[in-house]
């Protein structure tokens, strides 16, 4: 039951998730920032959660940076989901419940922030 006995898959999944999130966030942020520089138009202070996709469809480069930040913020959440799934598969229900509690608190943060 020690962490270093059968957790090779967990560590591999987590590493893959963090790498994917990191690279996509980095690429989106860089492209968005270069696009903003080339356009030279004023940029909105921030794009709220719901407006990212619509702003992107309207050709706003800042939306790409916002999407990059969103990708970054979603990465740890995906890591927690991976942990929950892994612990459920391993039938380590105590840790699975803990991961789900974390997800609930994070969701509460998004909902309370939006309202």
């Amino acid at each position, binding site marked *: 039951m020690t962490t270093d006995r059968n957790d090779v898959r967990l560590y591999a999944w987590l*590493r893959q998730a963090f*790498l994917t*999130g*990191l690279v996509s966030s980095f690429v989106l942020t860089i492209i968005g920032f270069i696009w903003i520089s080339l356009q030279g138009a004023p940029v909105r202070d*921030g794009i709220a959660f719901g407006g990212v996709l619509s702003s992107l469809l309207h050709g706003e480069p800042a939306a790409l940076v916002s999407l990059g930040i969103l990708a*970054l913020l979603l990465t740890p959440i995906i*890591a927690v989901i991976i942990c929950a799934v892994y612990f459920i598969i391993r039938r380590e229900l105590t840790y699975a419940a*803990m991961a789900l509690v974390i997800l609930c608190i*994070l969701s509460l943060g998004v909902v309370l*922030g939006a309202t």
Partner: protein
Amino acid sequence: MALVIQARTWKLTQAITGIVYNRNDRNAWLQTCERFFLHGACVNIHGMHWLDIGLLILIGLAAGAFGAMMGVGGGIFVVPLLTLAAGIPLHAAIAMSLIAVAGTGCSSVTSYIKARFTNVRLGVLLETTTTAGALAGAFLGMFLSARWLSGIFAVGLVLSGYFMFRNRNTAINVAALPDTNNHNFATSLQASYRDPGGGGEVRYCVIRVRQGLCASAVAGAMSGLLGIGGGVIQVPVMNLVMGLPIKAAIGTSNFMIGITAVASAFVYYVRGYVDLLTTAPVLVGIFLGAQSGVVVTRRVNGNKLRLAFSAVLVCVAVLMLLRAVGVNL
């Protein structure tokens, strides 16, 4: 080709900033440098010079490198640097810092997971109270004034510096404990990793879980309040109280700070408080700096790093304390 790009960049800079700069104009350079180092640059999205962008990337680099190196996320550097050096308002700096902390965590944890420094089970356990504390802190932070926040931040830094200064390798070797063959909850938190610094395989167990959970809640609240990762509390607590080796504490903290920062960063992001143009360069610096920080952690003596880190914390704390009492340097 390079000249064409340089000329185009120069024109773009003029278009964005609205100021006609001459590449050979030494006075413009000096004025900008003076603005940065003597008066603090007022960075805003409508008047951002490329030197502002360079400064923000540098801030991200420094914060990412130190944050990943010490498992603290870098928020303790990002917030003071953005407010003191770049002149950004404290609440905006906190929102930006939380994003940066998430970046440091995600960037460095890939290497720490590969090295097996990260104890995922312990991270998940402690995160239950940390995220709850972070959420409470984020909402509380919106109702507190910048001066109060500066004061709290300074006190937090002094405490962190003290803990870091006192920190010694207090890891409890699992081999030294009697084998009870009792696979209870604490046993499931045992872990091991191979130390590339020549220490061979390091096995350890986790003790004082309840105290760790309480400290995690405080770390989370500080994270939400002050825009830091909470690692300044988590690393000393895991090392001094819970018995983790310093490298395992740093690896686990880096896994946790990303999740902790996200809990409160979403509150700012969802409300559209994040200044995209200033956050982007900081993030780029963070991504690059965190990777270099991980490399240094593996090679440099931990005790020397810790002492230097304590000194830096105290210096920044003094600056923030002065700001809290109304003295702006």
